[in-house]
């Protein structure tokens, strides 16, 4: 059963190729259905392989499939091949599952777009690249997937390329990612130099002979790559701009899957991080600070997608916090549940945006719950899940992170707990402003009324994903319950990958329950704050300070201190150094020759073809001279 693993990335890739060749002919909606079926089929194959892996004894759950040699030069040898293990299959399962749902949703969401087939072409390519990323058996193939998802993200953020904001956002995302990628590349060079390989297995089995400074450098450089891809401090500003892409893209790429690639990478390199605790600490601290920073900004945004974007940055911070302290299974647990509820929230937001005729400002919404019950209920579940209300999935996964965070360092817990309150608060604000309170939009009085709106729940292709994700968000915690040692399925499933390198603080059942109560209290506090402040009001300037609305002015600082000065440097280089300096010297030399040669005017015809003839003649003369001398 494991042999069919190659089909997992191949099916969406085949979908891409088919759409490339005949997407226009298939048209709307066939192209969308084809893409959806390809991803769904990939999900089915994933389940089959997953089951095959599950049937093996826990110690033997690792299967490598090499296709062919990709690059071989000098001592470097890199294969195209897959690694099937509990970590990669967990990733593949949720990536294909969530992707299939979002593909289905997109058939409805994009139905009026003139580039409908192209959208699904990019989407399928994205899924293929993402699957290569998680299934690769070596760092370089992972990097191929890594760059592949980055390129697809570029295409999809700029999907509505006629909007300047969209094309600029796409470019910005690519460039921020590339900064991280440069660090990633240097890490690969270092790994190759020190271990002679880029294959996971070979690299990890030779770490013992690598010095700690090198290991720290590898860890930090790979983390720098992750910082770009997963939008952490300082490379996060692109993610808010990335919301220019169609909403299903935000749900799939910029919430559920691609941005979690950095977390996956950190979990994958756990043998390196285990030997480089300094690097791991950097990851945990950056993660914690990003979690808090993202949450504060999300409290003051008015664009519903920006709220969710900063929320994603914040949640990813939690995951890095967990990975940095070595609680990899907590990071993966949070990643899974986050994929469910954040995809749900984004799709819900998309449904609202549709209903509002592409308006995204929560301040102009309100009282939509009665008109869009499915959207409202599922969004409500999403809020409670991300907020960490008991029994919802986020309660368990975030609790897992906080629990281990406290065990590692109470300071990390304090930051995480504060973030937890803010999380329950800012999404409560969003929910209440959108679905409750006063109606702040104009209703269409009669058919064809252009100024008015007639909000309603979306068609079934869009509702089904909402409902499925809503259910998963509600009960997703079941895969890993800490309350009984037999119920932590995910931890046990992943344990062969992390082995003894896993950080797990053992509190005993009493400790677990204590923390569960504290978490519940934090979540309720956030919910209570949201209801008290936003239950009946839509404007509270004191709680939306400009500094937070402007995201701590960090984007502004990037522009002011990096983008603009470097543009000026480039302009100066081009117009002064290049034109006047280097080329000036060349032309100056030519001028010097010309003016000293004024005496030789008679031969100075000015036609280079005469010089060419002169060259040929000269060559003949030299040859003749040499010949006569020799004979």
């Amino acid at each position, binding site marked *: 059963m494991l042999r069919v693993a190659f089909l997992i990335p191949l099916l969406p890739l085949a979908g891409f190729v088919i759409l490339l060749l005949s997407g226009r002919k298939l048209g709307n909606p066939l192209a969308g259905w084809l893409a959806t079926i390809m991803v769904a089929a990939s999900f089915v194959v994933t389940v089959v392989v997953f089951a095959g892996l599950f049937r093996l004894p826990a110690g033997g759950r690792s299967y490598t499939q090499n296709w062919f040699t990709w690059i071989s*030069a000098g001592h*470097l040898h890199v294969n195209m091949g897959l690694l099937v293990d509990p970590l990669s299959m967990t990733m593949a399962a949720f990536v294909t599952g969530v992707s299939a749902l979002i593909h289905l949703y997109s058939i409805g969401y994009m139905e009026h777009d003139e580039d409908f087939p192209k959208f699904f072409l990019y989407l399928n390519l994205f899924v293929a690249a993402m699957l290569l990323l998680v299934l690769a058996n070596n760092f370089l193939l992972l990097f191929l997937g890594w*760059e592949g998802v980055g390129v697809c993200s570029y295409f999809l953020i*700029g999907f509505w390329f006629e909007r300047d904001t969209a094309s*600029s956002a796409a470019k910005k995302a690519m460039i921020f990612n590339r900064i991280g990628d440069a660090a990633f590349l*240097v890490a690969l060079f270092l790994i190759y130099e020190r271990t002679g390989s880029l294959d996971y297995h070979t690299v990890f089995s030779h770490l013992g002979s690598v010095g700690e400074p090198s290991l720290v450098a590898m860890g930090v450089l790979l983390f720098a790559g992750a910082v770009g891809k997963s939008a952490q401090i300082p490379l996060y500003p692109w993610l808010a701009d990335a919301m220019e892409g169609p909403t299903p893209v935000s749900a799939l790429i910029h919430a559920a899957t691609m941005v979690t690639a950095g977390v996956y990478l950190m979990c994958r390199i756990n043998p390196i991080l285990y030997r480089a605790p300094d690097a791991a600490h950097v990851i945990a601290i950056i993660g914690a600070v990003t979690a808090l920073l993202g949450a504060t900004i999300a409290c003051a945004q008015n664009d519903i997608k920006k709220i969710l974007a900063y929320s994603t940055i914040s949640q990813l911070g939690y995951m890095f916090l967990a990975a940095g302290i070595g609680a990899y299974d907590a990071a993966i647990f949070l990643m899974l549940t986050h994929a469910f509820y954040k995809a749900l929230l984004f799709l819900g937001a998309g449904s609202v945006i549709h209903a509002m005729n592409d308006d995204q400002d929560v301040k102009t919404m309100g009282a939509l719950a009665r008109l869009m019950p499915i959207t409202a209920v599922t969004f409500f579940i999403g809020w409670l899940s991300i907020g960490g209300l008991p029994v919802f999935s986020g309660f368990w996964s975030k609790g897992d992170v906080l629990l281990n965070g406290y065990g590692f360092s109470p300071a990390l817990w304090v930051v995480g707990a504060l973030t937890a309150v803010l999380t329950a608060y800012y999404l409560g604000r969003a929910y209440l402003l959108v679905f409750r309170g006063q109606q702040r939009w104009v209703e269409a009085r009669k058919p064809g009324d252009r100024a008015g709106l007639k909000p309603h729940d979306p068609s079934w292709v869009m509702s089904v994903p909402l409902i499925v994700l809503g259910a998963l968000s509600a009960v997703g915690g079941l895969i890993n319950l800490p309350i009984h040692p037999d119920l932590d399925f995910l931890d046990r499933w992943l344990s062969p990958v992390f082995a003894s390198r896993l950080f797990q603080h053992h509190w005993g059942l009493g400790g677990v329950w204590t923390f569960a109560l504290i978490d519940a209290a934090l979540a309720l506090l956030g919910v209570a704050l949201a209801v008290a402040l936003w239950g009946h009001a839509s404007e509270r300037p004191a709680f939306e300070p400009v500094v937070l609305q402007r995201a701590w002015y960090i984007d502004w600082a990037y522009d002011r201190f990096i983008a603009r000065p470097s543009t000026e440097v480039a302009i100066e280089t081009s117009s002064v150094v290049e034109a006047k300096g280097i080329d000036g010297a060349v032309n100056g030399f030519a001028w010097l020759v010309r003016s000293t040669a004024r005496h030789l005017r008679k031969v100075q015809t000015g036609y280079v073809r005469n010089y060419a003839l002169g060259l040929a003649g000269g060559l003949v003369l030299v040859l003749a001279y040499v010949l006569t001398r020799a004979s």
Partner: protein
Amino acid sequence: MTSTFPYLTTLILLPAGAAVVIALIPSAQRRLVQVVGFVASLAVLGIASAATVAFTSGYGGYQFVSSHQWISVFGISWSLGMDGISLFLVLMTGLLFPIALAASGERAADKSFVAWILVLEAGCLGGFLALDLLLFFVFFELTLVPVYFVIAGWGHERRGYAAGKFFLYTLGASAFLFVGILALVAIHASQTGVTTFDVRALTDTHLSGTAGVLLFLGFTAAFAVKMPLFPFHTWSPDAYREAPAAGSLLLAGVMAKLGAYGIIRFDLALFPRAVVTLAPLLLSLGAIGIIYGAIVAAVERDLKRLVAYSSLAHLGFIVIGAFAISREALTGAVLQMVNHGLYTAALFILIALLYKRLGTFSVKEMRGLQRRMPVLAGVFTLVMLASIGVPGLNGFVGEFLILAGTFLTHRWWAVVATAGVVLAAVYLLWAYQQAFQGKPTIEAGAVHDLSWREGLTLAPLVILIVLLGIFPGPLLNRIGPSVTQVVTHVEVVAHQRPPQVGSPGVALRTTGAQR
């Protein structure tokens, strides 16, 4: 190797002969000129392909060697040979010339245009195949004349200035090469009593430190200008800009490689100790070229000049790969010469197609083209991503090998060069945004998308760009043994220890044939 067919001599004489034939056709017979020119260039491609098939992989030395005394008193001979380093440059040359003709439209029926292009092909192939230094020099110089006439005759507005600048600049630099060749031969003759221009014999010349450095500088001056290498590049934006599409394509795709090839074939073989001594200088110039080219390209509005500066950056990578003296880096450099030829050719063709439709090279006058020409925009995107070095496409493989190999021997240069990875994204994405995104300014239907004929011209390049990104193996297997020979030679002569990869006991180094 056992084959008796004179592949290499045919490769040079066929286009040269075809040029003569075309010169004899009356210029009114335009279709005949076009057909003969195109068929001749296809025939060259066929022979180059046959040679590739007949080429023995796994062997690092010269194959198909053909040696005929030419001017025996001076030991000058018609000496040709092909190894893994020249093999794919020859094949790429064979591919790019018919494509250049196909992309030239009506000009491919101009008698003198086609004749000059074929002369250029003979010159380029001769340069890649010559084992005799004087023969190499003759071919190296021979290429100037057709390019001069192609730019001056069929170029854009400032063609006269650009052609003259190109000609004089490269000619001036070649003088150093000529003097260097004569001096090297003289030193060799005084040591052995044998006058020969054969590079294989000259490899054994014993050079003092100073002599080696001076000769190295003389040779490298010519190669550096030809590539071009920073800061000897300023002829190239003008020449690339003013040349017709075929000219820019061949200048950047093929002729630039003559310079890089010269460095690998002659500098590394003849002056290993000087190479090691001066490597930091050359690596620095390469790294500066990468950063500098990208910075200037970032504010360049003219697409052709932008590609010229981007080429400066890309050739910087190749120079770094050549001077890093590691197997990975040199393999990457050779591969990257081919890769750069492919995507740069495609870029110049696409730019020419835009010019044909819009009459401008300036991105300021382009807007929203993706809406009007989706297929052309798609191809442009793919080629752009290859040029940026996105893995899965051909540019990445070479770039990665260069950087990984350089990291082993010259770590910090590799780190600086890696920054070029970021910058390449900046200028190309910016240009793409300007030209292809935004609200279209031209009416629907005012321009047509890629035609079948244009698509067919681009298809081989596009296919190879994808294929070589995923299956570079067939190339790497043939380049590898020759690269190992060259690098081992430098290491042995210059007493360099091969870079250590992996911890002791982990790495089982597999070195090929030792010289």
